[in-house]
């Protein structure tokens, strides 16, 4: 499974890419592969606020629905509207196609996430 360097990761297989005070959030390659063909993405609205580990979106394959959780707390500043009509983008390139952009509430929470090296180890050992 592909793991991109320089991103943060969670044990629920979300990735987070810091961009100043903001961050993009998406699903890892492992997550999209485990889900199979993604046919629907349920997105939040801009300005919605979520705590760390709170579900903010849902990604659905034909077979199942999976919640996507906030790696850190924050406010939604943008949603990837392409996913409404082309949810399969998350399968095709999970690291290029982010789900939401957020304004990070507390940057200290980033320290609790895994680095790409730690996530690779996590995939090897735990999954």
């Amino acid at each position, binding site marked *: 499974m592909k793991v991109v360097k320089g991103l943060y990761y969670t044990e629920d297989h979300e990735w987070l890419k810091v961009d100043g005070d903001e961050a993009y959030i998406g699903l890892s390659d492992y997550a999209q592969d485990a889900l199979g063909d993604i046919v629907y993405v349920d997105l939040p609205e801009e300005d919605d606020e979520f705590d760390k580990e709170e579900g903010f979106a*849902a990604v659905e*394959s034909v077979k199942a629905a999976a919640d996507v959780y906030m790696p850190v707390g924050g406010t939604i500043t943008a949603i990837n509207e392409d996913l*409404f009509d082309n949810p399969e983008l998350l399968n095709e390139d999970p690291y290029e196609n982010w789900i939401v952009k957020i304004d990070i509430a507390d940057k200290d929470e980033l320290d609790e996430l895994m680095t790409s090296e730690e996530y690779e180890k996590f995939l090897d050992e735990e999954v």
Partner: protein
Amino acid sequence: MTAKKTPLYDEHVKLGGKIVDYAGWYLPVEYEGLIPEHEAVRNAAGLFDVSHMGGIVVKGKDALAYLQYLLTNDISSIGANQVIYTMMCYPDGGVVDDFLVYKYDDEEYLLVVNAANTDKDFKWMIDHKKDFNIIIENKSDQIAIIAIQGPKSEEILQKLTDTDLSKMKPFHFDREVVVSGIECMVSRTGYTGENGYELYLSSDDAVEVWNALLEAGKDEGIKPTGLGCRDTLRFEAGMPLYGNEISKDITPLEGGLKFFVKLDKEEDYIGKEALNKQWNEGLKRKVAAFELKGRGIPRAGYEVQKDGEKIGHVTTGYMSPTLKKSLGVALIKTEETELGNEIDIMIRNRPVKAVIIKRKFL
């Protein structure tokens, strides 16, 4: 308890199948992907390993009388080498299981039952054997079952056998078909809504026949197909799944399967009285099909509301791979099942509009 492997397990792994534990069996949920596999069955052909299903043989002088007492359909209505779909009910009308009955002759029948229900069914049958002069045998572990389904299935299977398949009518079978040199029982049956065949053979021969079919169907576009699309295909075809549309708590009448319940069958059978009573008093709830109008995908178990009041739950729902629409079946109050009626499906605590449609999706 660890899950069991069918004789085709190694083939599934070789083909890249995503293996899951389903009803106590290690089986592939998909190989290449649910959607391409679903489309292969609708447009060409798919090959399923359904060896997990149970096979129970009933034989003896009273075989027919016993099955008439046990089952809701009229088993006397079929001849030898014919298949009939039926329910087996509890005295209160709830369903023990639903399955196909194969008639070998007046004194021998094969019941092909849901994998998860095999042990329960077998026990139920033994417990209700009474004084009938019969023998009941659970042959589940000796039989492998391979299903070839899809518009190209006849063409592909015909390449491997001298038996003229065009003469086999739906819901008929032939016990002496030689496929790729191996003796099989072949029935024109399936669970996909497409033309197709199910091959019953000795576990020892399963790998050979499986690979012969994949090879024979290469040019026609055959694909190995997993449990994932098995469910989306049966759903689109309007077929029920035990545990969803019918169960211990949902009678076949509520499940929309009255055709397979002979309320006026001459013989008494388990559940007959309760089912007649339910029908005569009128159903308080029943299954109905719906199309989602808002965004989202309805899933089994989601609550259904009308004007903020709970009226039932979704029994099966999908983003239909063939129709590309969010469709579902729900068990709801009868008065809400009229065509065109608007209901709300609760998706992640939000009501999403849906409208009742005919339960004929394709």
